[in-house]
């Protein structure tokens, strides 16, 4: 096999996949804004995607914040007591909060959406929607995207608070820092932009999570095995896109490189 042909085939396959995802998104997004809007379905998805992800996101944030505090304290002896709260709050709000929450929710929600839509596809339930004059993009895809974009920033906001708490618990109970000055250092150093940039990221990650779940589920084929593959692809592609989008948004918000 000619290695150039192999590379070329891979690139073409990758580009056409990107094109298909883009086309899918172009079909889905306008449906989120055009009536009829299915309020009941959106609320249902907000519960599933947002509310039930709270424990996962909270625990992840708590342990990440704690570990972060411990790492920095051990690494820098001088001035650690003022440095630790500052780095924890920046690290959590700007980067780790949204990224960790994004990855955890991708594992939970992208997989669930892909499995549900994939099963609907192979059992012809999606075709049945069309024959009942209901647009599957509007009925299935749009509510999930709306719910994920709305709830991810809220999840990350709560995760930020819990993550900072995690750092504080480690600082006060394990490193014997003064509680009041830890909190004062945190609040003094934190700027609004740190939090809002993280929340913008969260909204974008929410879009990616729902889109990947829907795209792979909608196009799954071939019975149980196909649904399994769709679920795996949804989680993997959502995770990769989240990390890529995170890099791009970080360089957009905070200036890249120089």
């Amino acid at each position, binding site marked *: 096999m000619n290695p150039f042909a192999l590379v070329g085939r891979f690139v073409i396959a990758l580009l056409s996949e990107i094109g298909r995802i883009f086309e899918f998104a172009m079909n889905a997004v306008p449906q989120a804004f055009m009536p009829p809007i299915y309020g009941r379905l959106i609320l249902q998805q907000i519960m599933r995607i947002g509310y039930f992800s709270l424990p996962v996101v909270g625990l992840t944030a708590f342990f990440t914040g704690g570990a972060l505090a411990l790492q920095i304290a051990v690494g820098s002896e001088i001035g650690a007591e003022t440095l630790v709260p500052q780095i924890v709050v920046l690290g959590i709000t700007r980067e780790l909060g949204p990224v960790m929450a994004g990855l955890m929710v991708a594992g939970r929600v992208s997989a669930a959406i892909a499995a549900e839509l994939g099963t609907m596809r192979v059992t012809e339930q999606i075709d*049945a929607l069309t024959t009942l004059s209901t647009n599957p993009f509007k009925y299935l895809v749009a509510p999930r995207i709306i719910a994920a974009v709305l709830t991810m920033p809220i999840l990350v906001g709560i995760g930020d608070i819990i993550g900072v708490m995690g750092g504080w618990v480690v600082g006060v109970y394990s490193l014997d820092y003064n509680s009041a000055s830890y909190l004062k250092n945190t609040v003094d150093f934190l700027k609004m932009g740190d939090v809002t940039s993280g929340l913008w990221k969260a909204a974008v990650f929410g879009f990616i999570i729902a889109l990947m779940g829907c795209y792979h589920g909608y196009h799954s084929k071939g019975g149980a095995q196909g649904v399994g593959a769709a679920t795996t692809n949804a989680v993997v592609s959502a995770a990769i896109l989240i990390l890529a989008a995170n890099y791009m948004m970080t360089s957009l918000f905070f200036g890249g490189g120089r």
Partner: protein
Amino acid sequence: MTTPKIELKGVQKRFGTKVVLDGVDLSVDPGESLVIIGGSGTGKSVTLKSILGLITPDKGSIKVDGREVSRLTGRAREEVNRKFGMLFQAAALFDSLTVWENVAFGLIQGRGLNRTEAKQIALQKLAKVGLGPEVGELSPSELSGGMQKRVGLARAIAAEPEIIFFDEPTTGLDPIMADVINDLIVTTVKDMGVTTLSITHDMVSARKIADKIAMIYKGKIIWSGRKEDIDNSGNPYVDQFIHGRAEGPIKMELAK
């Protein structure tokens, strides 16, 4: 001469290099029941899905009430699909909804009826297929295959469509339940005076529900006529199929 309810001319579709439909010509008159027979993988399902707009054909024309529909999308497609009802092979009931919500789905989402009104109609339709109101509150996964088919039929007729499609209505059912479904199809359809297009490989079912039969083989209609004439078709392919013989002009492509 009346305009055919459904008319296909030279419809072609290929998936990759595999030609599935190779110029299908079909016509169904208003109030008529056409059954397409043929083996697995001969293009029956693709023909049906092309008319429904689930698959876009590569070439050819599909007309419903004289209007070209093969390239419609979005709102215009939904408008045409309002004329249709469809009973899927495995019923394709929405498992996140109860039975009555399934039957009422097209009324609520498609026609914008309120839930109370739609539920009344749904329970009437369930009664029509021999299911009591208590079934309406169950979830589809609690039903047997035959009951799911009946719910699927109730959902297909709920919005009083002009055309109903049946995809293998008796596949996977025992002979008695199959006959019950056939009877239901005949009575509901005759009641409503609708046009139907069915695909099946079950000859008992085809003889019962058809006015006309068409046989598809390798993506082409190779014979069509009134069901009384099928035993004297003079077509060796049709003869082989209706008698279920392994030997004949149709060769099963078995891997050696």
